[in-house]
């Protein structure tokens, strides 16, 4: 039942990456996914979670992947995160030249901040893993903690925080790690409607650097963002990728960046004229995939 031990064993081998990492050139996309497939074997039975997926994500692009629940969205992200191996196909992540950044940081769907660590230690976890000394990493995460609205809660433990605050910590942990790409798996799905609206705007503000994000990288991070919410996808992303029901494959791609400029006002997007049209188009694609 328990494969955790092997998790540790594989902990350092970034094998799926090291083979395919290459240094940036203008022509190549940041993330390049080719023929990626995943079949889970559960007691002789094969469950195809992901049909062949081909996808390019540009450097600094925010791509949202929408699809019905169970279509393989989490599986795709876990493969990109190196937590799962693909059954077939390959992907590569382009490294920024001259930098030695971690390849990716994931914001998980479920509650994933460590209950035994303070907010500060949670946010600084990636830096600690990279061997940054305590004082230096505490100093380094301070701007991030401030930017995401956690100032004054540095020493709080997660059980003292609300659900929204916990997700802030989770986001801050990923951003503070300053990775090549950010992977986000329905980070706000568990939040109540109002908190979700606030967090979407916060995420955009930090990612777009509208507040002058004092992070290390001056450029916007490449984001692969998974959601089942059409609204969230339109509001946040440059491009929406629509997945079919399980086994997930790409049904449609919708260019949003051409319609809404950055930095974006979430409320303005929702009340704009093209919003309804975009929503309808994506919903048409999704509706047939949902077995209600």
């Amino acid at each position: 039942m328990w494969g955790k031990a092997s998790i540790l064993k594989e902990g350092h081998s970034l094998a799926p990456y090291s083979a395919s990492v290459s240094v940036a050139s203008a022509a190549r996309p940041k993330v390049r996914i080719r023929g990626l497939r995943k079949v889970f074997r559960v007691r002789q039975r094969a469950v195809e979670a992901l049909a062949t997926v081909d996808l390019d994500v540009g450097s600094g692009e925010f791509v949202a992947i929408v699809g019905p629940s169970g279509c393989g969205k989490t599986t795709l992200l876990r493969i990109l995160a190196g937590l799962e191996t693909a059954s077939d196909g390959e992907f590569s992540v382009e490294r920024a030249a001259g930098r030695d950044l971690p390849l990716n940081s994931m914001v998980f769907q479920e509650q994933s901040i460590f209950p035994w660590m303070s907010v500060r230690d949670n946010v600084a976890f990636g830096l600690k893993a990279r061997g940054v000394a305590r004082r230096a990493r505490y100093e380094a995460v301070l701007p991030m903690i401030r930017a995401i609205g956690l100032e004054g809660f540095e020493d709080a433990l997660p059980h003292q925080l609300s659900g929204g605050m916990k997700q802030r910590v989770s986001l801050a942990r990923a951003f503070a790690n300053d990775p090549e790409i950010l992977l986000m798996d329905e980070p706000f799905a568990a939040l109540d409607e109002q908190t979700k609206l606030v967090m979407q705007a916060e995420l955009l503000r930090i990612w777009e650097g509208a507040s002058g994000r004092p992070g290390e990288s001056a450029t916007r991070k490449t984001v692969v963002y998974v959601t089942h919410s059409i609204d969230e996808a339109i509001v946040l992303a440059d491009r929406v990728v629509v997945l079919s029901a399980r086994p997930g494959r790409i049904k449609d791609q919708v260019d949003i960046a051409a319609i809404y400029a950055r930095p974006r006002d979430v409320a303005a997007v929702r009340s704009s004229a093209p919003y309804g049209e975009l929503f309808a188009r994506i919903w048409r694609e999704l509706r047939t995939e949902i077995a209600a």
Partner: protein
Amino acid sequence: MSAPARNASASVVSSWARPSRRTVERGLSILSPLVLLAIWEAGAIVGVVDTRFFPAPSTIFAALATLLQAGELQEHLLISLERIAVGFVLGAVPGIVLGLAIGLLPLVRAIVQPLVDATFPIPKIALLPMVIMLFGIGEGSKYAIIAIAVVFLVLINTEAGVRNIERIYLDVGRNYGASRLMFFTDIALPGALPMIMAGLKLGMGVALIIIVSAEFVGARNGIGYLIWNSWNTFQVDRMYAGLMVIALLGFASALLLAALERVLVPWRSAVRI
């Protein structure tokens, strides 16, 4: 920036309402043994309790006072406490380390697990002759027998604690590139801490049981010796005084470990409203 910060402060769980409830619980915990003693005393006075076999608590406390005045009790208590403390630490530390290793490293588990499974069911007190053979009749054998009893309980609980850590935390460790050492110190150890505490509590209880038994047969001092010697010389009130001390030790050690748990596992004790 001020808006989310204000939101945040409003959402912090207030903790000032809790102490009063905790005080009530603690008060009840102190009250329940006192009530039992009162019933016993009343029974002895009324005559429903045969005081030849069950002396009234007041008689036992009188014997306790005599033992205290003579300085006898302190001597026995101190030596027993020393044996428990040393033996407990000698068992708990390797128990935690091994438990973490078994929980995290399949290779270590493959080697150690069958040995643990085979030796755990052996009543540890039955090992006393062997332990005395190995460590002599002195303090070494007392430390060893306690350590042996404690190590199993701590190890088994620690391992279970590691195995029950939610998978997501290990995924985070992997995704953020945590080193092997960090998996131990930052994830496995704190994640298993609630179970480790449970193991320590069980271990402490067993340490008390073991030390008394060990002092019955192989010692000239200690609370166990006091009890056994009093029984042999038919000083029943002194025997009960010894038993009372053991009971108090059990009570005190439970309080101590509960306090330790509140300090070490604050995120857990807060959930247990």
